């Protein structure tokens, strides 16, 4: 499991023990118990926000809006509905959580269309609109809000006072447990890839937008749940209490504790919740102190307090890889070539070109990077795309894999027009791609990187992840086994447990190739695979590429290493200033006057 999350899971029992200890100590002091209860409530919302911020890199300054939805749903439901309390309360909570989740979906859907800071402003707008609606709705009590909200009731049992502490923390514990399960499963792995390198995740077929929206919905739902419990214990809901200051407080909590982890959220919530005991006379100084603390944390300890603790703990050597499949015997691996699991059956039906590019043009302002390029690849061939620097080769790759938009032209993959498609959709067709600068997921191990490659083939659901059902665990194990097999075939096994960012340069490229291959593509775009490799590594690369080709994969290579290109390509295309100037067998191209001129200039 991802090292970061392993630490997170280990920290939880410790935190649980602290909560229990504090609870016992608070039995004699109602103020402490109350503060602890609010800490639990904040924690529930903070966990959601922590996941959102830490795992998909999105700031939300509108969580109070979801909180308010949950709070008002419970307040309204339990005071206005004519059902018996035992039914009204759970129903109202359900209403609150579901509404908040749906709102989260909507906000995510809208906000994610924008870049960075516009997104933050959109979340702010959402929070404000919620407050505005609460403030102006007569049925929600307008500026005065709703009062006399009853305590939660289960049959004859009313939860109030001291037991509220245990109830709130029980809910928080369930949320923490579910969230950790989510992070350990397929969803968590997807989040981690998005967090590390969104583009690389997209070209592996991971629908990044979908997961980001999911994160919003989850964060919204949890905030709604927190709000629901808040209303039940405080007894009053007013618009001002669920406005921007609360959103800021939640944000501060998560940053302080450490975004991205469940433990961090708990730590942050506990600290702020407990400090709140100091009462109102120091409110101003307290808030100023929070602000200063957040700035200090952001500068000096971006991982929050949890991150700091982890760094201190890292003084000990890294524990050995303890994945479930580790002790199982490896299949007889053997050959050094990259053999596919099965020969290519899917993909291009015979007779249809795996890739057909028609009149593709890409302009950047006055610059024409790719100029009306057209070609079609034949199935199961290895073609190289060469050309002087700045010729537009990578731009062409980007166009084919759906990164950025075309200024003109069409791209067809196995007969399907994919012009304008999102990268993950194109990847899902069976297209793989590597990048010029080996975009690995730095904070994941080599094994986890390669697992990400076969992401599309994992079959499990969000719910199964959440509850850590056997089906989810099985899907994880299978993914691990598949990844190990790929590593074995490429002789990368010894590196399985190494963090990608610690890899030597030559290994990075090989791991990226392994990851692309793990997705089982039938069309593979490889961008400068030989750059930075020594002679031995290049020989291995050559063998691997040819083996892929022999298995039926259609390969398109950008490469500068002429010796490699000339020896393995069946066809060479030459691009100069965005225009195709030669296209044919290697020897033919090498002696083409135009090509020589392109590389060496005229006047020889």
């Amino acid at each position, binding site marked *: 499991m991802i090292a970061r999350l392993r630490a997170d899971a280990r920290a939880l029992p410790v935190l649980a023990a602290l909560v229990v200890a504090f609870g016992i100590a608070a039995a004699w002091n109602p103020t402490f118990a109350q503060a602890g209860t609010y800490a639990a409530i904040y924690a529930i919302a903070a966990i959601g926000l922590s996941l959102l911020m830490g795992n998909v890199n999105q*700031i939300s300054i509108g969580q109070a809006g979801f909180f308010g939805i949950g709070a008002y749903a419970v307040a309204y439901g339990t005071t206005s509905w004519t059902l018996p309390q035992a039914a009204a309360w759970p129903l109202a909570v359900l209403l609150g959580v579901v509404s908040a989740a749906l709102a989260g979906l909507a906000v995510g859907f809208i906000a994610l269309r*924008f870049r960075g*800071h516009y997104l933050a402003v959109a979340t702010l707008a959402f929070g404000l609109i919620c407050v505005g609606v609460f403030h*102006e709705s007569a049925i929600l009590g307008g500026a005065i809000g709703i009062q006399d909200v009853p305590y939660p009731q289960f049959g004859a049992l009313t939860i109030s006072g001291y037991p509220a502490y245990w109830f709130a923390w029980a809910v928080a514990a369930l949320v923490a447990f579910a969230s950790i399960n989510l992070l350990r499963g397929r969803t968590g792995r997807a989040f981690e890839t998005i967090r590390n390198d969104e583009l690389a995740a997209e070209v592996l077929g991971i629908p990044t937008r979908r997961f980001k929206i999911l994160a919003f919905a989850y964060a919204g739902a949890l905030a709604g749940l927190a709000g629901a419990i808040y209303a039940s214990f405080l007894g009053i809901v007013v618009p001002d209490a669920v406005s921007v*200051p609360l959103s800021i407080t939640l944000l*501060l909590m998560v*940053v302080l504790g450490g975004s991205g982890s469940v433990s961090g959220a708990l730590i942050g919530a506990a600290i702020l919740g407990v400090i709140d005991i100091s009462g109102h006379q120091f409110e101003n100084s307290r808030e100023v102190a*929070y602000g200063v603390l957040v700035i200090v944390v*952001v500068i000096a300890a971006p991982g929050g307090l949890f991150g700091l603790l982890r760094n201190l703990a890292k003084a000990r050597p890294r524990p050995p890889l303890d994945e479930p499949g580790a002790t199982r015997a490896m299949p007889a691996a053997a050959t050094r070539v990259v053999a596919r699991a099965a020969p290519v059956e899917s993909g291009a039906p015979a007779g249809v070109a795996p890739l057909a590019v028609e009149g593709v043009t890409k302009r950047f302002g006055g610059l024409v990077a790719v100029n009306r390029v057209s070609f079609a690849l034949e199935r199961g061939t290895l073609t190289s795309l060469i050309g002087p620097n700045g010729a537009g080769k990578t731009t062409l790759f980007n166009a084919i894999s759906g990164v950025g938009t075309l200024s003109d032209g069409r791209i067809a993959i196995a007969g399907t027009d994919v012009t304008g498609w999102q990268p993950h959709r194109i990847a899902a067709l069976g297209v793989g791609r590597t990048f010029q600068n080996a975009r690995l997921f730095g904070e994941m191990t080599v094994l986890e990187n390669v697992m990400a490659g076969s992401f599309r083939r994992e079959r499990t659901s969000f719910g199964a992840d959440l509850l850590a059902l056997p089906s989810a665990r099985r899907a994880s194990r299978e993914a691990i086994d598949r990844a190990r097999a790929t590593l074995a075939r490429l002789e990368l096994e010894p590196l399985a447990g190494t963090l990608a960012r610690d890899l030597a340069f030559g290994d990075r490229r090989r791991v990226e190739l392994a990851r692309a291959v793990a997705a089982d593509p039938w069309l593979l775009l490889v961008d400068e695979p030989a750059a930075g490799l020594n002679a031995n590594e290049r020989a291995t690369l050559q063998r691997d590429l040819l083996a892929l080709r022999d298995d039926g994969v259609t390969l398109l290579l950008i490469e500068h290493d002429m010796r490699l290109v000339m020896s393995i390509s069946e066809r060479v295309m030459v691009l100069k200033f965005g225009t195709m100037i030669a296209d044919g067998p290697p020897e033919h191209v090498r002696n083409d006057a135009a090509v020589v001129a392109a590389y060496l200039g005229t006047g020889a």
Partner: protein
Amino acid sequence: MLQLLVAGLTVGSGYALVALGIHIVLRATRIINFAQGEFTIVGGLIALTFVQVLHVNTWIALAGATLVGFGLGLLFERLVLRPAARSGEMALTIATIGMVSILLYGHALVPGWGSLPQPLPAFSGDVSDAVAIGGASIQIQSLWVLALLLLALALLYVFFDRTYYGKAIRAAANNPAGARLIGIDVTNARSVSVGLAIALAAYGGTIIGPITLVGGAGGVVIAIKGFVAAIVGGLESPAGCVLGGLLVGVVEKLIQGLPGVSYGISDPIVYALLLLALLIRPQGLIGARSAVRD
């Protein structure tokens, strides 16, 4: 009607300046300064201190507050933004949110400032002085606000568009690598930009001071309306920001002036305007689509 228009333009001038400040910081640092509203409030309070402690008139207080604002901006960039930038863009944005907390609650702790809004003496005569134009009674102070807004815009335009150094700052924001390659110190350029943005905030907080008072907890709301203004008008365009600010101010006052409508409803409507703008035309009235969409 004219009265509402002028009132709208007056309060809109404040929003315009906030939006413009956000724009300048955005250009220089690539992030949104969520604390721009708070700096506006603090700016007005600084002017108040000039008036109360140094016994000068509001004009001198305006100049003083603007200068102090510039200095605050330099400090802000040096002590908060620059170190936080090393931790990434998200960290930087969070740092500005932390700054909101510090200023919002901290300003009340400064002796003489407190947490309630206070009046700033008028720029001329008395705050209630009014002149009759077209059948409506227009406050003289409103006219001053508009005039001062135009003055600020003119000065900024001249600086950024007609002076060598101003263009160098724009260049540094446009392409930091290119700027370094011809010898422009990008870090200094960034510092000056932030200094100007905060100076602008202080200026804005002061000119609306006589009418809308200085201090109080309104910083967050002003900041938000500044965003609305920037997004409606066009975050990436200075003209857009100003246009947006005036528009938002006018819309707000018009709504408030409608008979039978509760005063408080203008705010949610303005926020809904923000959402509408994001949905329909996120690049603003004056802006290019490519700057916004993913």
